């Protein structure tokens, strides 16, 4: 027979010094999730400049003078935007790797290596992010 327990609030951040790897993984997953959904709304808002751009003449589109191309080009010329994109990559990669870990845990795979797989997610996120910096920064200077 299953029993239910009242654990109170699941996330009591005042206890952060007692958190183990699994709890940190969960907190990072939440944090990166908030960033990603926030970004999705921003992303669609910026991409929406494609709607007025579609109404521009063919000559303007061919010359890249439409509002969408101009908006993206000016955003991408800012170093801050490029750095934020690297941050976004780091956030996305961690969420994806830790998400894979969570899917496996839910399937009962690798339960004994939960801590190790969290550390592996962190290290791999760092490595992929660092390796991507040249590509993400290219053309910004």
């Amino acid at each position: 027979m299953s029993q239910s327990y009242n654990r109170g609030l699941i996330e009591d951040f005042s206890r952060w010094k007692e958190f183990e790897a699994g709890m940190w993984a969960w907190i990072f997953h939440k944090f990166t999730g908030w960033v990603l959904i926030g970004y999705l709304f921003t992303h669609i808002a910026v991409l929406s400049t494609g709607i007025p751009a579609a109404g521009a003449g063919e000559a303007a589109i061919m010359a890249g003078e439409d509002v969408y191309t101009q908006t993206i080009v000016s955003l991408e010329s800012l170093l801050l935007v490029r750095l934020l994109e690297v941050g976004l990559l780091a956030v996305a990669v961690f969420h994806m790797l830790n998400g894979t870990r969570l899917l496996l845990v839910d399937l009962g795979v690798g339960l004994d290596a939960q801590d190790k797989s969290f550390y592996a997610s962190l290290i791999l996120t760092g490595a992929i992010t660092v390796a991507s910096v040249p590509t993400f920064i290219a053309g910004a200077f």
Partner: protein
Amino acid sequence: MAERYSSFKSGGRMWLLQRITAAFLLVVLAFHFFLLHFVHHADEVSFLASSARMEQISYYSLMILFLVTATFHGVNGVYNALINQGLTGTKRTVIKWTLVAASAVLIVQGVRTANAWAGIGLY
């Protein structure tokens, strides 16, 4: 048997959908990043290039599915996070429907943008 902890009520329909969309998004988000940052580069973006991709029905369909699954996964994740923080009662109902409305706006706006690129008149 030790009690297994999950942030979701295991076995529910939303629980399953959150995981199915997660598996789909893993592949498509990786493809999205790879295509638009490594194959093509950020400083090469143009309406013309976005349009050329979106005019292909396979790419257009994938991006629409990407938009819908990402919106569901993200907004449902936010809703679950808020419930874990103790959201209940009327506040929970209000936030739930606010999130549903925000998702609808996001999906409509995303589809309009995709249609504008694809040259589909409806935008």
